[in-house]
């Protein structure tokens, strides 16, 4: 398919299964979403290794559900060579999920949504 002039955003299955099976088509950016927990950092690191191995695209680490500077520091430490973008832990996201609504519709000004809006702007400017 020809997607030139369009933006394609793919939400992959949890974990790295899909990544290991992807061909080498490549993308502009691979966003690895990581929470400040050992489990999540471990999966994220494996994902980053696979992306590098297969030269799939440039990795941006999204540090999600960040509650404190320590949380962010833990993730930055695990990904010293990557851009790390924090998205705060935000009850508005959970509330939207409970209601089956898009956070962008129900809480466009919530801190997490703002962080994601800024990230989208950055990606459009650099990709």
């Amino acid at each position: 398919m020809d997607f030139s002039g369009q933006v394609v955003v793919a939400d992959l299955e949890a974990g790295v299964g899909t990544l290991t099976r992807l061909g080498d088509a490549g993308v502009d950016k691979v966003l690895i979403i990581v929470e400040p927990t050992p489990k999540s950092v471990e999966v994220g690191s494996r994902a980053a290794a696979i992306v590098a191995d297969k030269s799939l695209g440039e990795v941006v680490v999204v540090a999600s559900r960040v509650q404190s500077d320590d949380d962010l520091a833990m993730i930055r430490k695990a990904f010293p060579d990557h851009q790390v973008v924090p998205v705060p832990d935000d009850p508005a996201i959970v509330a939207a999920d409970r209601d089956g609504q898009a956070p962008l519709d129900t809480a466009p000004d919530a801190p997490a949504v703002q962080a994601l809006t800024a990230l989208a702007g950055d990606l459009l400017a650099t990709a």
Partner: protein
Amino acid sequence: MRVAFVGKGGAGKSAISGTFARLLARRGHPVLAIDSDPLPGMAYSLGLPHDDAPLPDEAIEDRPDDEEGPRYRLRAGLSPVEAVERYAATAPDGVRFLQFGKVRTDPRALFRSQFAFRQIIRELPVDRWDLVGDLPGGTRQPFTGWGGYADTFLIVVEPMAKSLLSARRLARLASSGDRPVRVVAVANKVTEAVDAEHISRRTGLEVVAAVPLDPVFAAAERAGKAPLDAAPDSAGVQAVSSLVDRLEKEHPRMKVTP
């Protein structure tokens, strides 16, 4: 008792199954915890310091070309029971821990261990251990052989639209197999009294436990600790303890064969 926890990604399968396994062991059951999720999870919630515990190469051999069957198998003379006794990790409270093997950049690195894992689960005698399983998130794997050992599927459901949808799919898949299984729901991250009732109505499943949204669970996760060690008296652990009580009544303790 042979139970398997299933549910959408992030629903709480690992946190609950690991806690469940240890509490069951504390009541005197011989417990084998089975982690078939290639992503990290159950080891942490059991309180094991390492996540990765594949079966070692020495336990496994290639199938000779002139014999039928899977490519790799337990080495000759090593029974599934012996394999567990010798190679399964030992978690706190005496829980034995058997793992499918964690994702590697090269998936072939784990083929041998994974064949042996499947063989052990298939051939394990029913009266030796109570089995408590943590299955991968989503609806694809649990019923294509991965959860074949379970007589009871516990679907972990959050009171959220996506989780309910996923639970309904899982319930349908679980009941459509060729063997009779019991399928019930565990409501997790419950914040309102009506949540469990809501889950039962929307999934058509009996809700056998309601685990509250408990900040200490999330804190334990951040610290890489088992909820049972980080917060033994928390409301979340107590709810899992009630679940153990309930299932224990339905599946009385088996005799431990020495």
